């Protein structure tokens, strides 16, 4: 049961209030019609399943309902950082 700091509510709350929303920094292709099936399935299904520190998206379902970014160790489940969208990006993941 994680304790997550919502960057919008500025409060540390129980995991019960949140829902996970997958790996962060997956950009939606600009031109889906032009993609091959392989390219589309890569966007839709394939994830890095990274072992270690990992940026992912969470949504404060039973709170402010906003999506935000969480950097979590997938080994110890320690949450190292939280950020609003734009504060960190795939080019600048800190």
């Amino acid at each position, binding site marked *: *049961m*994680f304790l997550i700091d919502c960057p919008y509510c500025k409060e540390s709350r129980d995991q019960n209030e949140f829902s996970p929303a997958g790996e962060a920094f997956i950009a939606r292709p600009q031109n889906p019609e032009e993609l091959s099936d392989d390219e589309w399935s890569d966007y*839709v299904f394939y994830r890095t399943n990274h072992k270690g520190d990992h940026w992912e998206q969470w949504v404060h379902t039973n709170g402010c309902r906003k999506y935000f970014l969480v950097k979590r160790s997938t080994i*110890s*489940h320690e949450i190292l950082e939280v950020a609003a969208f734009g504060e960190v990006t795939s080019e600048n993941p800190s």
Partner: protein
Amino acid sequence: MRLKNHKSDFIDQSEALSFIFNNKSYKGYKGDTLASALIANDVLFFARSFKYGRKRGLMGSGVEEPNALVSLEIGGRYTPNLKATEVMLYDGLSAVSSSNPNSIDFRALIKPLHRFMPAGFYYKTFIKQKVWAMVEDSLRSLAGFSKAPTEKDEDVYDHVFHHTEVLVVGGGVAGITAALEVLNNSKTTRVILVDERAHLGGELFNEFQSDDTAISWHHDNLSKLLEFKNVANSRLKIFSRSTAYAWYDHNYIEVLQTNATGESLISGGTQAARKVLHKIRAKEVILATGAHERPMLFETNDLANIMLSQSVRRYLNEFGVISGKDVVLYGNNDSIYSTAIDINNNEINCKVIDIRPSGGESETVLKAKKLGIEVLQGYAVLKAHGTNLVKGIEVSSVEMQGKKWRLTGPSKRLNCDLLASSGGFNPVVHLDCHCGAKTFFDEDSQAFLPQKVRKNRQVCGSISAIGFWKDVVIDAKNKAQLTLLSLGEIKKSTQDSMSENYLDYYNASQFFVPIEILNRPKVFIDMQNDVTTLDVALAIREGYRSIEHIKRYTAMGFGTDQGKTGNINGIAVAAQFLDVPLSEVGTTTFRPAYTGVDFGAMAGREVGGFFDPQRYTTIHDSHLESGAEFEVVGQWYRPWYYPKSGEDIHQAVNRECLAVRTSLGMMDASTLGKIDVQGKDAREFLSRVYTNAWMKLAPGSCRYGLMCNEKGMIIDDGVSTCINDNHFIMTTTTGVLQAFTLL
């Protein structure tokens, strides 16, 4: 039997309680556990074992007990598979064995066949031969422990949430010291102290009975704790009879508290909870969970009245009861001598058998010898004699040759009616490992210890193999200082040093597992699941090498005690058969829960009408009047069909369908989700969320639409209506509504 003239702080002899066990009535006192009261009444058999139906007596005195499983009360108060050692006695208590030791048992009748029924027997004989389906029911009815409850639980259970800076698990010397150190050195830090027993103090009172300074330390520090507790807005909470059974991520710990007396409190119309589940979020955790004693291994070591040395001492000192008159203590460390001294002080005959050779004795050993206690050094027990109850033992001299123990002399027989053994101590690392922490094997203490450093967690006391209480006090203060430092309450921690020989207190010698003894039959490792050393040997012969596989092949460490007494011995036995060091075998994985947790406690108040909210539409009464049957969709009670006299569901639905086809039907769509879509791009929006076309839908018309996500999976469907070009009303299905609005 209960000792006359025995004084104990824990037993109130002025208050006699009567209770029933296996349909016979007995008397005990306030402060007794069911186990101690039955020892006082000379009851020696508590239950039968799982597989072979062997009659078993007590082995332990607390949470580690593998044999004495009982079910408490009947009807709506029935609770199965409790440990008799943990059930506090109350007036009118009624309990039965999980498997009655006094009735005729099929498993016990086929005793000569037991040697042909090792681990894997049922699989090889029935499942592999594809006849399992024919025999499953009859076999299952023979085995097992208590019956499952059949009636609705009459009791209530509560959930309570807590936030604290420091959680101390374990209320022995280490826990008391750590809690006080934190409270004394900070003005704001909140502390929760939980302990599984009814009284704080752990083993101090039992182990150091003859040490006056220990006893007065206990009294002084308990009163200091109470000073902190008995003030308004106290920073300290103490939960006794509370077991921290699971540690989840981010220091979230669940603690199950049993009502102080164990029974339900129903008074004056209000019903107090029988058990309370405390959900604790702590910044820092101090583990002072102590250690469990492990037994020595020998042939037929499962007879009744073969117990753990510390448990015999606890029954003696805390409850004033003992189950024998001619006691043998057997082990590889000094704790058996302390037990022997306490037994001798109560004028009961006892002998000590120590596998360690003479020479280099500690003070405790010399003290025992000085008191005239007969001591056999360099001897081991090979076998216990007796049918169901121990009547005597076979001993032989042993010697360490190279790195292996060897039997060196002819065996001889000694008589005894109670055998208490100690093969060293297993630190209670379970909780620490629930979130993935590892253990390591420490050669000095011959124990698996918790990993040294972990964020926001300290360990102190005998969980780190520190046994002597004065060293434990120093260790606990040091660790509490580190906790305060981590909280930022102090700038620099003070660390005092323990006595030089702090590991020597138990002086646990090497695991005593000579192959000559392990190769004998009926050397039980796991009493509850009837796993013997030969089962482990068989698992290895079958090709299993990993301890996790050996565990699953033999069922070692499963069951309600989760191998608290047996598992580490099992690992040592496997190491011996595999001929590798213990550290290479490692431990099995520790997972929640540490002890059994009642389903009732997990559910709390969320039962019956509170299990799930019930949502009714405004015309619910009208549906009722029309005789509707309801179906629950997304918590809504929606009319399913309206049966008329004698109709079943199919007849009613056919009639309703026909009515719609030939005249008119009306549907209450108020439970559907409704989304008002407005704006100049409303049509475009619908086209993007639905898979079908919306650009040409005329105002005043409606259309059915299907929603897919990017993976191509259908997520919802529904009808949307066009009010005008810039305004649509969309409906979603009742069940999906909540998911939509929450995301």
